[in-house]
Structures are given as structure tokens and as C-alpha cells.
């Protein structure tokens, strides 16, 4: 794909990925066929900051985990009062990384 297009994409979505993954995403996008551009653009990535806000206010109910698509862990948090509150607090610090990881997993099938 056109490097200008890819750089623009990386510029706008960079905050959705872990920094160590950005290089890999960029390399794969450059090697990608132009026909996949529309698909990549419509891909719904989750904002780590939104996830953090949800985690702070509704983390006890596991809503943050549901939001990023980690349904299993969401149910786990919901049915244990947020792991008696401990898991909920741990997730305040974990959720941003988890969101970026999930975004990376989400874009993977389109890159290969």
C-alpha cells in the first residue's frame, strides 16, 4: 500500500496499539494489497482511554472487559463483585494494555 496512506493510518490509530507493535503493523500494511484498505479503515478499534474510564467507574461489574471483547473475564469479574474489588483495582492498571493487545489481535487477521 501507499506509504503516505499507511503513515496517515498509523498517525491516527497509533494510540490504539502497543508501541512495540506499531512497527510490525506498519510493515505489514505497506506489504498489503490496496483492496484491503477499505476493510482496514472500517475496523472498529477500542480506545484505551475510554476503557480506562469505564474501568474506573464500572470495573466492579466487569463492563470494561466486556467493552474490549474479553467476555470471559468480564463474566468472571461480574460474578465475583469485581474479584471482591481487588481484581477491579488491578484492572485499572491493566486495562489500557489489554485494550491495545486486543486491538492488535483484532487487526491481525487482516494483515496476513
Amino acid at each position: 500500500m501507499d506509504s503516505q496512506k499507511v503513515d496517515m493510518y498509523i498517525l491516527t490509530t497509533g494510540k490504539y496499539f502497543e508501541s512495540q507493535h506499531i512497527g510490525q503493523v506498519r510493515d505489514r500494511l505497506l506489504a498489503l494489497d490496496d483492496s484491503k484498505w477499505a476493510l482496514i479503515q472500517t475496523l472498529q478499534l477500542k480506545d484505551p482511554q475510554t476503557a480506562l474510564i469505564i474501568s474506573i467507574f464500572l470495573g466492579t461489574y466487569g463492563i470494561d472487559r466486556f467493552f474490549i471483547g474479553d467476555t470471559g473475564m468480564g463474566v468472571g469479574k461480574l460474578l465475583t463483585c469485581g474479584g471482591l474489588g481487588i481484581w477491579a483495582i488491578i484492572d485499572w492498571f491493566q486495562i489500557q494494555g489489554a485494550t491495545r493487545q486486543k486491538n492488535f489481535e483484532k487487526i491481525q487477521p487482516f494483515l496476513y
Partner: protein
Amino acid sequence: MRQSGKRIYLLLGGLALAGHAWLLYYLAWGGPAESSLLACPTRKLTGIPCPACGTTRSAAALAQGQFELALWTNPLGYLALAFLLAIPFWLAYDLLCKSQSLKQAYQRAEAKIKQPQFAWPLALLLLANWIWNIFKLL
């Protein structure tokens, strides 16, 4: 949505271990009489019970053979105790036989409950249980 297998095993194992420790602590030192033992942060902060409030009391009642009391306290106690009883054996089986059946079951279950035809009824059931919890003033 692939998740690393190790994380799932750590999560389920840790959850089961914490659950056993908590239930043991509750049965040994808490007891049903001591109503000051509140672990739920929502309940502590707002006074309104969360959907899972009463699960410990229910599981403890089950462990002591009071099936009816457990059902009236919170039906989720049955689920919790089943989880606590099954997971250690399943983990041990997977470890000994080098199988990945628990991880595969977890991923299948996660994919299932993401489908609307399963997600909505489960969510409504949980909501009904929550409303019941609030009326019971757990």
C-alpha cells in the same frame, strides 16, 4: 480472538485458588452470624447489593448442606461452588495429560455467550437476580 493459553490457565487457577481461600476463611472465621463481613465494594460504598452479592453466603450454606437457604440467598452460589469443585480437577487433568481441554472449553464458552441469542437471556436472568437481590436486601 486468540488468547494465550497460559493466561487462561493462570486466570482460572488463580480464581479457583482465591475462591477456595475466601470460602475457607469465611467458613472458619466469618460464619453466617457475622453480618459485618462485607467484601463487596459496591455494597460497602452505596449500600445497594451488586448482582453477585450473597454468593459467598450461598456457597457456604451449600457447603453446610443447606440447599434451600443457598437457593434463597443467591442462586449464583450453586454456580460458584460447581466452579470451585470442577476447576482444580480439570486443571490437574490438563496438567497431567498435557491436554488443553480447559482452554478450549473456555474459548468455546466465551464465543457462545458473545452470540446475542445467549447473551441477552443470560443478561436478563442476571438482571432479574440483581433486582431480587436488591429486594432481599442482601
